[in-house]
């Protein structure tokens, strides 16, 4: 999941570590472990998020993630289910104890209906987890002031949402994201609500360092093909960002010459 920076062209660098892909993929909601693995492979994601849950003692053998073994990606545990800072910290430490690396996607959502992040608890937990040695990637509203504060307490990235999770609405608060992108000194990963390759392409064109997608891939009719579509969308948007888009133009402009025959 990480080569030496020199080896990867245009790597995503988080906390000093280089990743070959700018697509972070979530592993929830897949119809089967096999489809999950095939979709992850098709996505070429270098970071795959996972959650932590009680073992179901009636199906103790069940292991959705077994199919992910041996892959060349970082497993990034989230703190989904946490409703406050204490719960999130507890979840992060449990995840670390499973033997994976001390990275955490910090999400604290007190309200089950919307699953929107709590800014107060998120900052509180981020401070604790950073001090505890975690590489912290917090999920937040597109709130530029909060993003800056999280950066100041040592978060490795910020992960503002494009729109509410699972809605597939794409980027709905564009100006706030633009302000975050303009001021951040850590990588900005746009997360949640990105429902189509055009959405992730837009995010990358705006200058996002990476994007995160789960629902739109996992619930597609063909998740593996959709993973490939998102992979292409990220590449397309990133390529455009680097190629220097020419920007909106107020007035129409011909693409054919305005001089010459019949117009003379």
């Amino acid at each position, binding site marked *: 999941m990480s080569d030496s920076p020199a080896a990867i062209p245009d790597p995503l660098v988080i906390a000093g570590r280089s990743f070959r892909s700018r697509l972070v993929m979530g592993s*929830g909601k897949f119809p089967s472990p096999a489809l999950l693995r095939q979709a992850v492979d098709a996505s070429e994601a270098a970071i795959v998020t*996972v*959650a932590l849950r*009680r073992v179901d*003692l009636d199906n103790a053998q069940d292991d959705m993630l077994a199919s992910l073994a041996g892959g060349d990606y970082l*497993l990034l*545990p989230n703190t989904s289910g946490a409703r406050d800072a204490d719960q999130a910290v507890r979840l992060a430490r*449990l*995840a670390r104890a499973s033997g994976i690396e001390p990275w955490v996607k910090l999400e604290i959502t007190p309200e089950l209906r919307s699953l929107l992040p709590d800014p107060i608890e998120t900052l509180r937990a981020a401070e604790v987890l950073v001090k505890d040695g975690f590489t912290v990637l917090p999920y937040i509203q597109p709130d530029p002031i909060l993003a800056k504060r999280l950066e100041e307490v040592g978060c490795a990235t910020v992960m503002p949402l494009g729109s509410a999770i699972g809605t597939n609405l794409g980027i709905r608060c564009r100006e706030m994201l633009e302000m975050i992108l303009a001021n951040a000194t850590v990588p900005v990963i746009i997360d949640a609500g990105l429902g189509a390759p055009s959405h992730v392409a837009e995010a990358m064109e705006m200058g996002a360092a990476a994007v995160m997608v789960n629902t739109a891939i996992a619930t597609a009719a063909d998740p593996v093909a959709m993973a490939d579509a998102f992979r292409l969308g990220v590449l397309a948007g990133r390529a455009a960002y680097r190629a220097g888009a020419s920007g909106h133009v107020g007035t129409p402009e011909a693409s054919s010459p305005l001089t010459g025959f019949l117009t003379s």
Partner: protein
Amino acid sequence: MRITVNGTDREVADGLTVEALLEQLGVNPATVVVERNRDILPRDQFGSAALAEGDSLELVRLVGGG
């Protein structure tokens, strides 16, 4: 003795180790994380850690999530 596992009371043999409990429950020790009375139990202590009356355990593991 009685302990609580994932929120449910269970009767188990006195002095049972965590490793033995996991085996009884059919839980793979290589992927599970065990929290005993709110403290994480390192995996290398599963074999030696004996459970006590009233212990509260959480057995958790990584699953798919976004």
